[in-house]
């Protein structure tokens, strides 16, 4: 199909209009916001709640108790959590037998696809911050918290540090140096639980991904 490549590129080069007038791109309209940290947190919460996301602000040292409370409230039977990342180790250390069992994503998906798809009730992951303007969480899945972890279980808990909220998407990608340091296999913005309005515009949640997205904001 190299011929196709050549033909397409040739047609584009030969046919290109001379003197393409390209206006400059001024990104001010998507960049300039001056929100304080408190405003950013409020806006983030308001935006993500407006699309059915759940937010709980907790003191940093109390997040595990809060998570335990939510697991009980939502009657969840088990929890998938990293066994390598700091928050995973912390959680595992404080866990005890009477609580729902903890699972680990410690092998390749091929060896436990069926189990992940049918038997895991909830997962908890970290994130790389959030975006106030759109109420979005930034996730870069990796080997400790793989891609399907935030997608397949019906409930997804996310830990967000309150001081890691950016105003806009463009600010987040610039400050974290996305374009310069290279992109990971998969990067995600997650803004609420999975939803659809394909049946007569009626909203329904959890059509393919999590039905509930719960953010614990650590202050």
């Amino acid at each position, binding site marked *: 199909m190299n011929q196709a490549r050549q033909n397409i590129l040739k047609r584009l080069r030969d046919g290109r209009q001379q003197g393409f007038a390209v206006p400059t791109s001024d*990104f001010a309209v998507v960049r300039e916001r001056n929100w304080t940290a408190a405003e950013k947190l409020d806006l983030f919460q308001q935006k993500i709640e407006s699309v059915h996301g759940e937010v709980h602000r907790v003191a940093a040292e109390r997040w595990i108790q809060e998570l335990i409370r939510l697991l009980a409230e939502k009657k969840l039977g088990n929890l998938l959590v990293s066994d390598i990342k700091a928050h995973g180790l912390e959680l595992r250390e404080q866990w005890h037998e009477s609580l729902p069992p903890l699972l680990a994503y410690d092998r390749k998906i091929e060896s436990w696809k069926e189990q992940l798809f049918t038997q895991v009730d909830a997962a908890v992951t970290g994130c790389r911050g959030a975006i106030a303007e759109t109420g979005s969480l930034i996730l870069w899945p990796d080997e400790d918290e793989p891609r399907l972890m935030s997608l397949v279980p019906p409930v997804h808990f996310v830990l967000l540090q309150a001081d890691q909220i950016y105003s806009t998407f463009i600010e987040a990608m610039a400050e974290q140096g996305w374009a310069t340091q290279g992109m990971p296999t998969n990067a995600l913005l997650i803004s609420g639980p999975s939803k659809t309005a*394909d*049946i007569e515009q009626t909203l329904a949640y959890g*059509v393919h991904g999590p039905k509930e997205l719960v953010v614990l904001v650590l202050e």
Partner: protein
Amino acid sequence: MSAQPIQVREFHPRVQAALNNPQIRSNFRRAMDGLMTKRTAAFAGWDLETLRELGAAVRLRALSRLPELLEQLEANLVQQGVQVHWAETGEQACEIIRDICQARGAKSVIKGKSMVTEEMELNHYLEAAGIEALESDLGEYIVQLAEETPSHIIMPAIHKNTDEISELMHEKTGTRRSHDVDYLTASARQQLREKFMRADVGISGVNFAVAETGTLCLVENEGNGRLTTTAPPCHIAVTGIEKVVEKLEDVTPLLALLTRSATGQHITTYFNMISSPRKAAEKDGPEAVHLVLVDSGRSNIYQDQELLDTLRCIRCGACMNHCPVYTRVGGHAYGTTYPGPIGKILMPHLLGLEDTRDLPSASTLCGACGEVCPVKIPIPKLLQRLRKEAVDGDSLQPSRVAGHGIKRRWLESLVWSGWTRMHASPGLYRFAGRMMGRLRGLMPSKLGAWTRYRSAPKPAAKTLHQLMQERSVKSQAVKQESKG
């Protein structure tokens, strides 16, 4: 699946049928009204004009460097382990995809939403090759169950109401009849999860392809796009060559415009950026990722300074939602993959004017589409251009769209050249005007399609010139009298 083959040319009867179908009309009316209101609300507080200008500038900059950016995209993706393929036609793209599937011994394919694969009728092609292709976007899934085609590029099943969907799912999948949308959605989830677990290949579209970083971006709400691109061992992304943008930051204004214009959302649930297949230490994700770049007429559009604007489109569907014609006839009446205003300016290039001759005329030129288009495509101007192309009607600009001149009729062009001559000569103009006044009784009362909904025009007994002349003669006389 045997969806109806597209009969693009039988446009008028289909329009008639749609207009006479109250169900279609009320389904679309309700949906489009809702979408228009939501879009307006979503842009509240924004300097929308400046944002649209930025969106247009970003797209135009990408187009100005299209061949270079495609090469850069390819080089980066290849370096990151993604295999890149080029297809001149939809047929070629189908072959490439089939070959990838067959080389892996794939029996089943799960699909995320992709209009370009609709365009090339990939599902039929794969099924003919013995590969099951299942749509996973809920709307596409419904449309596929019904053996239909999407009637809207963002909301494929918008033409159906809950009743119809419940009946369809009951009949095809054995769910109970129910008006409970949560129940229907959960049933679909159940059936599709099973498929996601077992699918050999996932096929998705692409919303933006970033050249700078070699990143494929997908915008969606359901999570089926993420599943399609993560759960099966192989992912094939398919995109038109125009979807490339230069820099990662270019994505930000386009995303802000896309979701608000499309459904009035400040963002969709997922914005999924993929840059490589699974790396050695990673525990999930496809081991093979392919990108198929499809031309299929796009490089021809690229040759024309004016028509080129068509390629800025980010497929938001706002032009449809605001189109008075689309709202009344619905998406199927057009008979093309892309309906509504964007379809009217895009399909003539993809299929040729021979098959799409009536589309550019199916517009009141009210201008709503151009006003809402997030990347400022001058759709009404392009419609006028395509109308000219259809009749070879512009002597200053050579026609170039395939099938141009298809609507040119000798009688009509004779009438128009007479019209031109008459308006160029004052004497001839007056003479013709007077003759029309004299012979006004002979004017037929039926004038084909024109008089179906209107009464025939009747020339006045006297021309404006005559009336003015008489007036000035009279007032001269009055002046004379008053002086005397």
